[in-house]
């Protein structure tokens, strides 16, 4: 890669504000031909904002852009797309109810139309050609809502690639992709940069960026902290730039503290409507039990079943020394179990409510003044304690949860269950979509819980996390445990992967 490549896009002194919040604070940077430039930063750093402005999703408050030597101020994503800048995002970018081909050519149906009618078979053929050329194994006539999340992402990638973009922006897309999907994406990225195009790659995953990028720019709080070329890459340095302070190299645990023999939560040959058939599990006091596997292996159902939120057809879940049967969330909570769902926004939180509404929801009983009357002061303190203990960044506890970043949202969820002093915590993908600084804090917290004698069931799709945090790991496949390994055996990712697939 030549060091003085042609500059494709330049961003000058860009500022973006939302009301009182400053998302971009006089940002300058360039994108050169033939390079994969990574963009990394914590939540709120501005990395997605800058890419959304470049790709026409929103307009800057002030500042200018130059693209291929001319001023660039796209009015819409379609205009950006027509001019060779395409972006694929973290959330769903496809419309469910229509076929893949329609999604690929969304907005450009005129290409296949004669008069008012659209030649749909032709559209499908063209789409299929595209998918095949990219190595994506999908049927272009398939309805998009029948596809998995990864497949939808691949459709989006194809959609962006059809126009042979000059700049291809990939925003946090890899979290939705499995190994095979990622490999495909990396292949495409390298291919197009070899042809002189550019890629702007935004991700949380430091390892990934270090592996794939030619250069990385670090943002923090809306400002560019610095850029590193490939030969300067160093994960610790980058972490420090992102967070602004020293972040310990291993931010998981580094102890081998034991756990008790006492069984606090037990699944006794439980069969659920789907995924599980005569599944057994024992969680011990003071243990961090990790469960890993592919997304569809059934581990998420285990979490729900142990909380009483999944209908159990046969067998039972029992909790505590008295072996109380957990048949619904109410019983579970009464026996000091807490549960955080993978679908944070829809199941663990009431988004339209305030932070107080959510955290205080477990404290209606303890915050009473007398009889059934609740003390406002007690409630306020109940919430304030969690906010301060968890370092929750918010303007006030009365603000809506939907104004918070992912990490802070998860802190609200934690606050809810810790406030309730849950002795058993079932955490399903607790650090999904959260950036490094907050993740580190959460891992510390989880370790803290263990030391306090709480028991934790950690369900996660990130093997590194499981390996780093668990006392014991169960790997699941097709509703069964295929491997059990202890922390003391020092497992590695390679050891475990074969049991998952």
């Amino acid at each position, binding site marked *: 890669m030549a060091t003085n490549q042609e500059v494709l896009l330049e961003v000058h002194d860009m500022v973006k504000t939302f009301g009182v919040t400053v998302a971009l604070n006089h940002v300058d940077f360039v994108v050169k031909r033939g390079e994969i430039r990574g963009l990394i930063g914590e939540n709120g750093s501005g990395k997605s904002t800058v890419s959304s402005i470049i790709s026409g999703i929103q307009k800057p408050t002030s500042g200018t852009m130059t693209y291929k030597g001319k001023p660039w101020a796209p009015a819409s994503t379609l205009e950006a797309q027509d001019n060779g800048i395409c972006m694929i995002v973290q959330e769903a970018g496809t419309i469910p109810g229509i076929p893949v081909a329609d999604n690929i050519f969304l907005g450009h149906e005129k290409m296949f139309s004669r008069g008012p009618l659209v030649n749909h078979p032709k559209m499908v053929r063209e789409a299929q050609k595209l998918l095949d050329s990219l190595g994506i194994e999908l049927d272009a006539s398939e309805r998009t809502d029948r596809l998995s999340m990864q497949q939808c992402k691949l459709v989006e990638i194809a959609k962006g690639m059809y126009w042979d973009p000059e700049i291809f922006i990939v925003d946090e897309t890899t979290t939705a992709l499995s190994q095979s999907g990622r490999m495909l994406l990396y292949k495409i990225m390298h291919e197009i940069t070899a042809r002189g195009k550019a890629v702007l790659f935004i991700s949380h995953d430091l390892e990934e960026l270090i592996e794939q990028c030619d250069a990385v720019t670090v943002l923090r709080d809306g400002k560019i902290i610095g850029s590193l070329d490939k030969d300067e890459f160093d994960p610790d340095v980058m972490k420090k730039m992102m967070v602004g302070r020293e972040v310990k190299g291993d931010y998981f645990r580094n102890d081998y503290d034991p756990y008790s023999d006492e069984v606090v939560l037990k699944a006794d040959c439980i069969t659920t409507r789907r995924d599980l058939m005569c599944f057994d599990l024992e969680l011990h006091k003071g243990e961090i039990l990790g469960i890993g596997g592919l997304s569809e292996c059934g581990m998420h159902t285990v979490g729900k079943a142990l909380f009483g939120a999944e209908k159990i057809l046969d067998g039972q879940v029992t909790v505590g020394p008295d072996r109380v049967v957990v048949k619904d969330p109410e019983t579970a909570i009464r026996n000091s179990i807490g549960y955080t769902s993978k679908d944070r926004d829809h199941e663990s939180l009431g988004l339209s409510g305030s932070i107080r509404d959510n955290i205080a929801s477990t404290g209606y009983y303890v915050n*009473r003044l007398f009889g059934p009357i609740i003390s406002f002061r007690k409630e306020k303190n109940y919430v304030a304690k969690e906010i301060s203990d968890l370092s929750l960044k918010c303007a006030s506890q009365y603000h809506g949860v939907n104004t918070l970043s992912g990490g802070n949202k998860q802190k609200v969820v934690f606050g809810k269950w810790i406030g309730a002093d849950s002795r058993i915590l079932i955490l399903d993908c607790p650090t999904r979509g959260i950036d490094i600084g907050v993740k580190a804090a959460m891992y510390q917290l989880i370790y803290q819980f263990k030391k306090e004698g709480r028991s934790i069931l950690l369900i996660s799709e990130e093997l590194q996390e499981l390996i780093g945090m668990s006392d014991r790991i169960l790997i699941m496949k097709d509703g069964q445990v295929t491997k059990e390994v202890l922390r003391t055996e020092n497992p590695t990712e390679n050891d475990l992967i074969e049991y998952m697939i």
Partner: protein
Amino acid sequence: MKATFARIMENRWFSRMLSPMFLLLLALLFSLLTGGRFSNPRNLRMVLEQALVVATVATGAVFIFATGNVNISMGAATALIATLAAQAYLASNSLAVMFLVALAAGAFTLAVTALLSTALHVRVLYITVVMMTLLSSLQKGILGSSTIQIPYEFTSALKNANVPLYIFLGFLVFCIILFHFTGFGRKLRYIGINDVCAELTGFKKSRYLFLAFVVAGIGVGLGAVMTIIRNGSITTDTAASLNMDCMLAIVLGGMSAFGGSRSYVHSAIIGAVTVTVLNNGLLMIGVSSMILQAIRGVIFIILLVLSQKRPKGLPSQEG
């Protein structure tokens, strides 16, 4: 300037105070335009009394609306209960019996509605659409072609003793405490915020919905008694507009139509009084009935838009 405005809009007291403030403004305006006749104590009392039935039934309905559900049959229920209670009075000549029948029948009718929704797994809204017709037909069937007439001395004695006002105030205090000061109200609101999340927090929707309906049923029973006192006669047209008036009052009074955090018990009375103030005030300044309807419609829409407007939040995508 813009920042201050934004901060005001986001303040949690703003949404709560918007409707009462609007009501106050309206009252002041009418007072000015009628040279003080509007704020004559007798007139103000009259206006309040006109709003009492709607206010009572709507106050009870707040419990249902807080869970994010809509009950469109409150008026039909009130008419039916009023019919039953009136007959009970005529049969027994006892005020106490009338009260008891009203309360019991009200709670029972609405409890059945809740159970139907839960058992059939049909949304509350659709069940109540059916109930609206069902209860109305039931009332017509019981009433037949006659009108139930309650002796005038009885109803005027109660009216002069301010019984409707005391009933309402008692119910209001009860509801405020139950809704804003206990876990029950908070659970209802949490269900309105996100019912899936609420279930996972241990709040069984079926149970709390049932209880909310029972409270609303009490409101209906009380409203039925007040209808008897105010009207003196029960016909098939009784409480005809209450179905809509109930919902309108709640929303006009500042509560969100979707329930959740922005649910307040006081919305009912504020909304109900706003409607009657409008009617009374506009008639006093000489607006004809025809134009009155149009003006009412316009003001409703304005208030609705204002109360539903949410401050612009940050984009959902992080960064």
